[in-house]
């Protein structure tokens, strides 16, 4: 049995049939249960693991319908509208589902009805595998206890205290007093179960715009087989996308393993895709990157390819030689493949920003297909180093010729460089419009209000000046005695602050 911590006591959260035969009940204290039956086995509840298991089951149920919702901590809703004929009718589908669950070692109860409320009740309060035809909800619910209505325990006990024990009794009772006394939720649940108010389940995963799948009589496990099947699937997906005049930017491959595990592999592209070839290549890279982490086990018996984020895609017209302007697209596809294999951070492109601070002026951003906003033409083309370090590296400068001048020599990465020539300084001030103004408290001892304000302003100006001086950099281009050219700077000005300015090496030049 499983125990749960509740109000400082260990209580029984769930138990198996054998424990039930011992006349133990959920909610009973573990201490009491142990006193009755010292031999019972107690396991602490792990809600997180339960949830993971339920989500794995929900993943597996994706094979029946894309609309799977979690119901609390112990149930799943499947909206099988329009999917039933694929599995040979309602009866066959439900029987097959129950059989597969039992093969996986789960004991499940299932009910099928035309409303979520009635199905919920059917799954819990009647023989498993009950199928309610549309219109039978009222007669089915009439004889069930109030607990079949998905309402709070407090409401149930309230209703029972006034003698209403079955749903049938509420159905015939006048509605207005019920609503007044027990809240509108009761009537809402009732109407939902009867189908008078539409209720929709909220699927836990976004529903694909298009998806194609293939059930396999013989499970497959080899990556080559998966790729071959993938080409077939993307071929039929292409036809559907073509009919809609669209392409998709995200493709997801779902591999349903025989024993119930589901692998999701998704690839993204910068441009909408439709052709089977590029989609197959993207998945090829992704599968290669996954390598052995994709465990086929006993094989996959259902493979589904879904397309998300569809967008309009017009085929560019090729010239007579058959060569369209595909140069840019080649690069985009190449970048997509690299990213599918090595992660999104593997392809970068420079982005120039309107800033004079070197590390802000040019950023390496993730490649986005290249068709970003046109970067403004730059009139100002300052002399900069070829390579810039990710962050400026501190250097030791023992001596400068003059306080504000370039260093005589410096130590960088444990070796001393003697400066042969230096050019500079190029002073780069901080972007004061991006930093906040330091807060300066007014001097409360000053009596005159104007005087106080003037003093405060002066103090603030001084604080801003010190802050600016602290952040100001003087850049020098230096060449050491061996001919290496470096770009280094001194942060801070002499004489304006207590701390000694520090030196950094930011880049190397050709």
């Amino acid at each position, binding site marked *: 049995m499983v125990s749960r911590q509740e109000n400082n006591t260990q209580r029984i959260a769930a138990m198996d049939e054998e424990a039930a035969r011992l006349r133990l009940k959920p909610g009973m204290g573990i201490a009491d249960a142990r006193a009755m039956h010292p031999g019972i086995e107690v396991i602490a509840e792990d809600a997180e693991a339960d949830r993971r298991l339920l989500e794995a089951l929900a993943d597996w149920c994706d094979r029946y319908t894309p609309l799977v919702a979690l119901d609390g901590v112990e149930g799943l809703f499947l909206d099988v509208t329009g999917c039933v004929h694929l599995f040979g009718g309602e009866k066959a589908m439900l029987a097959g589902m129950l059989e597969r669950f039992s093969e996986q070692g789960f004991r499940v109860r299932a009910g099928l009805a035309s409303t979520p409320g009635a199905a919920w009740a059917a799954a819990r309060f009647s023989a498993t595998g009950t199928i309610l035809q549309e219109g039978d909800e009222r007669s089915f619910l009439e004889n069930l206890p109030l607990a079949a209505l998905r309402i709070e325990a407090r409401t149930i006990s309230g209703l029972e205290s006034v003698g209403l024990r079955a749903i049938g009794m509420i159905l015939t009772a006048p509605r207005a007093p019920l609503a007044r006394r027990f809240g509108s939720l009761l009537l809402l649940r009732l109407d939902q179960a009867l189908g008078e108010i539409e209720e929709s389940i909220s699927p836990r995963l976004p529903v694909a715009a298009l998806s194609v799948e293939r059930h396999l009589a013989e499970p497959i496990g080899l990556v080559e087989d998966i790729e071959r099947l993938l080409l077939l699937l993307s071929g039929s997906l292409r036809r559907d996308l073509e009919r809609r005049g669209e392409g998709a930017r995200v493709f997801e491959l779902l591999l349903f393993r025989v024993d119930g595990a589901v692998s999701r592999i998704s690839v993204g592209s910068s441009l909408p895709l439709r052709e089977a070839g590029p989609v197959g290549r993207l998945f090829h890279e992704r599968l290669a990157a996954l390598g052995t982490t994709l465990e086929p086990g006993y094989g996959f018996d259902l493979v589904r390819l879904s397309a998300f984020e569809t967008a309009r895609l017009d085929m560019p017209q090729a010239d007579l030689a058959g060569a369209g302007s595909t*140069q*840019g697209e*080649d*690069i985009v*596809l*190449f*970048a997509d*493949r*690299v990213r599918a*294999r*090595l992660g999104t*951070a*593997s*392809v*970068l*492109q*420079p982005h*120039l920003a309107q800033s004079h601070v*070197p590390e802000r*002026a*040019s950023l*390496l951003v993730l*490649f986005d297909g290249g068709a970003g906003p046109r*970067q403004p033409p*730059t009139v100002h*083309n*300052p*002399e*900069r*180093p*070829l*390579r*810039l*370090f*990710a962050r400026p590296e501190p250097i030791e400068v023992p001596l400068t010729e003059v306080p504000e001048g370039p260093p005589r020599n410096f130590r960088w*990465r444990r070796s001393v460089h003697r*400066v*042969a*020539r*230096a*050019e500079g300084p190029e002073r780069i001030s901080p972007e004061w419009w991006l930093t906040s103004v330091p807060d300066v408290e007014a001097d409360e001892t000053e009596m005159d209000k104007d005087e106080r304000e003037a003093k405060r302003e002066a103090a603030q100006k001084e604080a801003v000046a010190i802050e600016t001086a602290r952040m100001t950099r003087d850049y020098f*281009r*230096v*060449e050491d*005695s*061996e*001919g*290496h*050219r470096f770009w280094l700077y001194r942060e801070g000005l002499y004489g304006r602050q207590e701390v000694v300015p520090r030196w950094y090496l930011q*880049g*190397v*030049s*050709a």
Partner: protein
Amino acid sequence: MASSAVARETIVSLRHQIAKIEGRLAETFDGEHGDVHLRRQDGLPQGDFLATGAERFDAALGGGLPGAGLTEIHATGMRDAGAAAGFVMGLVHLLVERTSSPLLWVGLSESFREAGYPYPPGIRFLHGIDPSRLLIAQAQKLNDALWIAEQAASIDGFAAILLETRGPSAHLDLTATRRLHRRALDAGRPLFLLRQMAVCEPTAAPFRMVITSAPAGTRYLLGKPLARSIGPPAFLVRITKNRINPPSEFILEWNAHAHAFHERTAADPVVVVPASQHRATAAAAPGTILAFSSPAGSTPAGGQPSGEQHPAHRGHG
């Protein structure tokens, strides 16, 4: 006689095999066409050369850098990575001018972290390559970087590919470089293998150059050299593997305004001289750089006399 004929035949067949491996006609071995270098069409493509503008350098490469295939470029120390990148970007500039295709710089995260990330504004200033034409790919492992470079070489769209690696590696052997070389040859575009701190191992690249920083030239103000200024960057380029000519070395300067290489020779006016005689001591010596080309092997690393040595050399300038 019969045995000598057999021996001769063996030698000829061996020569043909060597020539096939090296990608040129066997006749060049015989010495009959001593100064004519015939190249097989699928070896080094005839006619597609990148003339750098430095005549002696181009001649040593047999007309210029091959416009397709692998070229190996070494930076001996981590500190020379900037110089090597500057030199390669100079070569790339010659290509980028022809097309509008972008350039791919593939590197290891480690090499970028250690030697610095490419800084597009610097590349724009020095080489005139627009930042929007630069694409950077980084990988954690050398195998992945090699894979990116191979894939990039086989698609049609990049003007040039730069693969930067760091340290010696067993993965970058003859087989791997031959794959890269073949792909780049088939695609008809150059692939520069930029290796930091690696030892010179056998590779399939027809040329191997070792780049070291050399003291820069000076700036000119009103036609006169400006003392102690840092002008066009200079590189000491040692061609250590060359199938056509014996190994040689050059000091090349990159002119950022003309976007061209110049060779710095003793007679060249680019040579830095002291701005004036009476300032010679003050300018110490650091500013006074005397460049000269000396026979291979006798030049110290950097190829330049240090400041202390300067007075002894001033007479030459």
